[in-house]
């Protein structure tokens, strides 16, 4: 009942040293009174004294009892153990440093990844009623999820009853001009319900209405552009040359639209194309409505639309998925879990390593421990002491690990934008720190228990059987490290193949310039003239070699796709689809895209001239196999206007370096005018050296365009940044794991050699050559590493299928990767055993036999 009060008093007792002195006085007094009593009964002084002492009982036992009752013996022992542990650890500073460093790396990585995992998967989205948010998807006849077409979204908005509100949104960039420097801002077009669905908090002003030229901006943009003092509300701005008024300032939903600074109305019309499915859609479920009900309703609506708009929507359906899944994305989720698993292995490895170190050390303390056992130390006390020692190590490791994690989490938040979903949520918090403390406790128990299972504790010299436990420990370490190394080498293999993959275009000395056209150039002729003028200006610069333009910035991850039919299919409703680009004639030469057949565009392919198209090699192969595609016709889009194929160009992958090239149709910019456009400029020197001249040349034609410049090589590297980052993380963990395992091997082999000194001495005395002895030691090390690597590779073989989607043109069973790992561990084993084996070979037989 009132246990805690007793505990409190006892705790108080720990710090009251006066109590014991009082007891002694009380006992003395008691004995004196007893003695006096006996004297009165007729005993002599001496007899009475002894009789009294006998009557009192064993005084030292009573004092011990009293002491234990008075304080908390466990805690006092703990104090002693702690002092003792700190002293021994200080004395063995190299052991301590090695253990703490290993634990710090393991725990630091673990805490960091816990923060990431909790931010990405466990924390609810930071919106009111986050659990009611769902992403809406169209589902094609093959069950793949698609974003929405505008009209289909409007139909859902009108018909769905399970949602309180639905909204569509679409990311874009926009050139912001008209007030200060022209800049390109990340923007999103949203329907008015967006604010309600995500519960967006307005700092000032009001939300958007349908199809009105108003925008809502982020506080960051407001401060950057207009400072803190003046309210931007009511100001007029130009976006891509169109006039908008700022209606409000709001907190942007950064998880959903990271980096977006501006929301503008998304104008949807029921007459828009139903086959252009490019809108993100989300809905807020009515309170109490389960997701399944909404899914069923959407399916019904999808079926209705399939009947009503058979030409575009037949066979299509709709569904809803939790918004959090949509935001994180499958690939990112897989990558994060993979890295988390890697870190988990690294952490286990660190624990095993420290356990091994501690076990080896407790063996070297065998003499001390057996002396203490002989003097009556209980097993519990010895265990307590070892545990205290591992706890001290674990706490030190955890503190250092937490420091590492704090730094790493900061770095992730700063650099992870665009790499990691929900990166703004990544920080050290109570939950993750709690989990880290959990990890630390487990670490203590694992490493402490292992060292207890050593012969010195069992009091015997029966060594060989115990050695098996330690062997298992080291085999386990090598196995874990080789799993990590295998994953890393598969990823590295993918990465090398990706780097070597030919994008089909020459990215060296190419500067990409995104140009947002001023809207005053409303007619196509003016736009064409504008780009002709810019190209003319640029070509006059000494640093500029060639200038081309395309509607898609290469490696931006964007792309455009259209439907088409072949000439012979004109009566059919079946369409093919292929990517398309609108390019200037110089585009191909600037990027070194080879012409395979026919001809490329010339300035003669202008508006009014016969409509022409250049197709890519893979398109030619797919649609005109064994024929000459030049001179063939295709029917463009749903309108079916006829285009003549005039040439075949090489395949390129300009969307992202790791995406296979789609069949591609090129159209001349002069016949299919687009905006914005991206200039590709071949420079004579380093691309960025030309940047400022390029800017002023363009602004000399029109000062109102917004420009974003980037060397194309950077854009290409950026398009595989996710792969690069996950590869670097895995490689780092794998190397750490290998080093840890190598230290473990080294420690074990050295220990083994020390322990077998006598035996080795005898063998040397009986005629074994030093070379025999050296090889014997190395063989043992190789055998352990070999077993570990074999187990690890087998485990890796069984689990590497999970990695398939993260690999690029690399099978998870790639032989070379397995071979590389095996070789690596052979080298590690030989290196780790080099020193100890040498020492064994140099042993002086006489001294070794006398030893002990």
């Amino acid at each position, binding site marked *: 009942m009132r246990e805690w009060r007793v505990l409190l008093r006892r705790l108080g007792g720990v710090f009251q040293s006066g109590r014991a002195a009082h007891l002694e006085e009380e006992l003395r*007094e008691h004995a004196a*009174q*007893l003695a006096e009593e006996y004297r009165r009964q007729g005993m002599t002084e001496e007899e009475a004294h002894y009789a009294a002492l006998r*009557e009192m009982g064993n005084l030292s036992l009573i004092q011990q009892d009293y002491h234990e*009752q008075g304080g908390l013996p466990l805690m006092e022992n703990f104090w002693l153990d702690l002092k003792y542990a700190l002293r021994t650890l200080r004395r063995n500073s190299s052991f301590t440093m090695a253990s703490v460093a290993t634990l710090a790396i393991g725990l630091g990585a673990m805490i960091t990844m816990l923060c990431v995992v909790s931010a990405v998967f466990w924390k609810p989205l930071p919106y009111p009623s986050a659990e009611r948010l769902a992403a809406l998807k169209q589902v094609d006849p093959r069950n793949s999820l698609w974003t929405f077409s505008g009209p289909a979204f409007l139909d859902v908005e009108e018909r769905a009853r399970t949602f309180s509100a639905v909204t569509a949104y679409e990311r874009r960039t926009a050139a912001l001009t008209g007030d200060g420097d022209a800049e390109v801002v990340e923007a999103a077009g949203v329907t008015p319900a967006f604010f309600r669905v995500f519960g967006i908090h307005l700092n000032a002003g009001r939300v958007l209405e349908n199809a009105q030229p108003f925008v809502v901006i982020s506080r960051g943009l407001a401060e950057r552009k207009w400072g803190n003092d003046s309210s931007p509300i009511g100001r007029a701005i130009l976006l891509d040359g169109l006039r908008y008024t700022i209606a409000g300032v709001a907190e942007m939903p950064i998880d959903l639209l990271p980096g977006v600074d501006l929301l503008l109305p998304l104008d949807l019309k029921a007459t828009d194309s139903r086959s252009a499915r490019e809108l993100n859609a989300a809905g807020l479920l009515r309170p109490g409505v389960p997701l399944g009900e909404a899914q069923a309703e959407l399916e019904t609506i999808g079926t209705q639309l399939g009947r009503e708009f058979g030409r575009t929507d037949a066979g299509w359906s709709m569904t809803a998925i939790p918004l959090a899944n949509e935001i994180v994305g499958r690939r990112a989720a897989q990558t994060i879990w993979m890295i988390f698993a890697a870190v988990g292995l690294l952490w286990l490895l660190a624990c095993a390593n420290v356990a091994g170190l501690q076990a080896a050390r407790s063996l070297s303390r065998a003499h001390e421990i057996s002396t203490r056992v002989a003097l009556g130390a209980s097993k519990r006390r010895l265990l307590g002491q070892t545990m205290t020692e591992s706890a001290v190590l674990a706490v030190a490791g955890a503190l250092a690990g937490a420091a590492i994690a704090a730094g790493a989490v900061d770095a992730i938040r700063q650099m992870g934008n665009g790499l990691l979903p929900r990166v703004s949520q990544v920080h050290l918090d109570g939950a993750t720190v709690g989990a880290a403390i959990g990890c630390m406790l487990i670490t203590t128990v694992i490493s402490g228990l292992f060292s207890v299972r050593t012969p010195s504790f069992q009091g015997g010299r029966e060594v060989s059987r115990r050695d098996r436990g330690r062997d298992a420990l080291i085999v386990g370490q090598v196995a874990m490290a080789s799993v990590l190394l295998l994953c890393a080498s598969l990823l590295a293999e993918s990465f090398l193949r990706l780097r070597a993959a030919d994008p089909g275009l020459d990215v060296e000395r190419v500067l990409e310039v995104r140009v947002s056209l001023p809207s005053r150039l409303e007619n196509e002729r003016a736009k064409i003239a504008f780009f002709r003028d810019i190209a003319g200006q640029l070509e006059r610069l000494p640093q500029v070699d060639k200038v081309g333009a395309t509607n898609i910035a290469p490696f931006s991850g964007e792309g455009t796709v259209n439907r088409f039919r072949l000439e012979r299919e004109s009566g059919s409703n079946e369409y093919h689809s292929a990517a398309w680009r609108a390019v200037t004639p110089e585009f191909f030469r600037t990027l070194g895209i080879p012409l395979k057949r026919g001809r490329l565009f010339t300035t003669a392919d202008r508006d009014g001239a016969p409509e022409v198209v250049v197709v890519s090699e893979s398109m030619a192969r797919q649609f005109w196999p064994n024929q000459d595609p030049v001179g063939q016709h295709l029917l463009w889009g749903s309108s079916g206007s006829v285009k003549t194929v005039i040439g075949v160009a090489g395949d390129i992958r300009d969307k992202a370096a790791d995406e296979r090239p789609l069949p591609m149709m090129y159209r001349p910019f002069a016949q299919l005018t687009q905006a914005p456009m991206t200039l590709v400029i071949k420079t004579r020197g380093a691309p960025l050296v030309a940047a400022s001249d390029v800017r002023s040349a363009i602004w000399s034609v029109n000062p109102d365009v917004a420009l974003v410049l980037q060397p194309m090589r950077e854009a290409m590297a950026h398009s595989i940044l996710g792969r690069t980052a996950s590869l670097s993380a895995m490689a780092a963990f794998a190397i750490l794991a290998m080093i840890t395992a190598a230290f473990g091997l080294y420690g074990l082999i050295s220990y083994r050699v020390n322990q077998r000194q006598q035996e080795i001495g005898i063998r040397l005395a009986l005629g074994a050559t030093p070379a025999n002895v050296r090889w014997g030691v190395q063989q043992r090390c190789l055998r352990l590493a070999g077993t570990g690597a074999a187990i690890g590779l087998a485990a890796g073989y069984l689990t590497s299928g999970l990695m398939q989607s993260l690999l690029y043109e690399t099978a998870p069973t790639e032989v070379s990767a397995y071979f590389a790992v095996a070789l690596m561990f052979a080298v590690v084993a030989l290196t780790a055993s080099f020193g100890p084996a040498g020492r064994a070979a140099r042993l002086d037989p006489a001294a070794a036999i006398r030893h002990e």
Partner: protein
Amino acid sequence: MASDSKAEVPYGTLDLMILKTLASLGTLHGYGIARRIEQVARGSLALNQGTIYPALLRLEQGGWIRSSLGVSENNRRARFYEVTKKGLRRLEEEAANWQKTVAMMSRLLENER
């Protein structure tokens, strides 16, 4: 001195004996408590008198008795113990429990015979 006719102190009964002694005699020091218990036992109990001190500490920690420093009849400093209200309640409970146990034990032993 110790002979076969003396019983060991049954486990857990020392607390009860001390509580009862303090309840009937009021404030006492350790020696007084020990003497009183010996008197009542009339030589049938093998009590190491020193063992009452850890018991006294335990009772005090539980809040059943309290102690204060004072001066004994022969003018020496001594610690005096008295029972608290809570201690009296506990004595009642424990005594009832003890009675029940004794009654049960004697019934059991009667039947066995």
